[in-house]
């Protein structure tokens, strides 16, 4: 595939997860291009997190004659028109994280619903007697938010000892989450035992609880370094226990290798699943160590990893 060119179409660069994703991309694809595995692997980001803008971007990538487009989509469906155009032009489209539903595209999906459910499963173990939960959701109207929330609610339905007494939108941003939680907290009962989250918002929730002078419940964490660091601090101070679920931003590199494999003529199933990144009480220190200060816990993939994932899915 030394003559092939691969593009990354990214819809948003405004948070640390996306920055880590772009960095992983550069870190892995740079050497790959140098070694002549591919001819080029360019990253493109739109100015605003908008499906229409990304659709235009994909159309431009088609015009530029890329052989494959690796896609983190702003919307699972709104890009289908543009993705179809790309497929019709003979371009391989591999979507990850924000996947698209257009059948001609490949999907590297995280089972978001399972992720939500895993949170409740953990709570079931950690808090056997159950109790009241606060839910922090992501950005309204976005697929990922809906999926994770669905998983959480499913889990809660199966475990009647838990009850969600409040739900706010934190937009996956720490300061927004903090604000939303601070606003609803005064009117919530004082016996909240746990906070189920979607990642990126756990630290904000902890801050809000502290500011309100309430005992900190069990808050499910995401993979931002500040969340992990806070968790570690609490753990050392009082033996605080929780878990973290998230998607590793390095999944962009997996998508890259999958695209490369497809271009190489390998048979690859249309749907691949990557496990979400999970950090538990015992591997917290190790994860924290490998995470840059202020960054995001991450895993990058090599060609071998990619081949393994493909083989497993076959």
């Amino acid at each position, binding site marked *: 595939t030394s003559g092939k060119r691969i593009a990354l179409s990214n819809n948003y*660069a405004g948070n640390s997860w996306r*920055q880590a994703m772009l960095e992983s991309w550069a870190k892995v694809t740079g050497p790959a291009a140098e070694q002549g595995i591919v001819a080029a692997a360019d990253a493109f980001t739109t100015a605003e997190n908008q499906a229409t803008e990304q659709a235009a971007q994909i159309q431009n990538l088609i015009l530029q004659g890329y052989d494959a487009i690796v896609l983190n989509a702003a919307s699972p469906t709104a890009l289908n028109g543009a993705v179809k155009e790309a497929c019709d032009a003979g371009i391989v489209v591999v979507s990850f994280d924000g996947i698209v539903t257009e059948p001609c595209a490949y999907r590297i999906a995280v089972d978001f619903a399972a992720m939500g459910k895993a949170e409740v499963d953990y709570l079931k173990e950690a808090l056997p007697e159950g109790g009241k939960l606060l839910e922090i*959701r992501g950005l309204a109207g976005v697929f990922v938010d809906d999926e994770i929330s669905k998983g959480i609610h499913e889990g809660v339905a199966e475990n009647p000892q838990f009850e969600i007494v*409040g739900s706010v939108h934190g937009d996956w941003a720490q*300061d927004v989450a903090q*604000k939303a939680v601070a*606003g609803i907290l*005064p*009117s919530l009962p004082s016996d909240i035992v746990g906070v189920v989250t979607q990642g990126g918002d756990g630290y904000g929730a902890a801050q809000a609880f502290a500011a*309100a002078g309430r005992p900190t419940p069990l808050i499910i964490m995401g993979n931002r370094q500040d969340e992990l660091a806070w968790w570690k601090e609490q753990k050392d101070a009082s033996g605080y226990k929780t878990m973290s679920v998230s998607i590793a931003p390095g999944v962009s590199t997996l998508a890259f290798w999958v695209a490369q494999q497809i271009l190489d003529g390998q048979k690859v199933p249309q749907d691949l699943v990557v496990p979400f990144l999970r950090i538990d009480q015992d591997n917290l220190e190790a994860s924290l160590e490998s995470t840059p200060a202020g960054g995001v816990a991450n895993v990058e993939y090599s060609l071998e990893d990619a081949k393994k994932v493909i083989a497993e899915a076959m």
Partner: protein
Amino acid sequence: MNLVVRLLAKPWIWAFVAAFGVWLATILFTGGASTLGLSQAALTFAAFSIIVGLGQMFVITLGPGNVDLSIPATMTLAGTVALKVMDTNNDLIVAGIAATLAIGIAIGIANYGLIKLLRIPPIIATLSSSFIVQSTAIWYNRGIRIKPPAYLAEFSTASTLGIPNVAIVALVISIVAWVLLEKGIYGRWVSAIGQNMRAARLAGVPVDGVRFATYVFCAVLAALCGFLLSCFSGGAALNMGAEYLLTSIAVVIIGGTAVAGGFANVPGIWGASLFLFLVVSMLNTYGASAGVRLLLTGLIIIAVIIAASRKQTV
């Protein structure tokens, strides 16, 4: 009686009436138990909208078409740069504040430069510059979250006599803005320009100087707000200003400042900021879904505006 009539004639009264209404509705939900917590949270988070709102207010008062859309990007850049400069070190707080002010001033100069030298309408000029500023923030530290120095983190989250420190900062800035506006020659000039720029110029008002100072003032307040917000929430995020784009405009106009320029008022900003925070808290408390929450927020805003309006006199 007379007092009531006089109060009702104030342009800012409706924002306070609305804020009080939703506040009451929220604490009634919990039978009054949440009064203190909710009030403190409201003051805390309103403080940030107040600070950016004040700057936006002066800009909007300059007349039709004047608005600063670079506030979110300015907040982000100031927050990221200042925290990186201070690098969690208490001794460098002064340097951090200096960096914040310098960024505000530089962006203000750039904005007015575009408006004056290239004659680009302010709405587009500040939008364009915000893209560049946002890019600079991304380039500068790639979304790495650095913690604020301990003093600042402590200061920005603590309260004095039960009033959150950030609200006290907002109060001080508001008093300064009020004096400038109501008692100072600067306020007169801004208002004159907003009513009729040509007439103001012919009446001897230094139009360019005042407009320049206003854009710089607005950018400096935005930078300061970004600085405070990132200290408050434990680090700067690339998207931390996003929600202040609409908020900064909304608090100004809900607060009774004339959108067509020439007339401004400071108290209304407080009413409107508290209102905007409280209305979301109220709807969250009552368990409204995201859709319903947005819908009701919009309808309440329109209702407040209509209540505050007068019939068209022909």
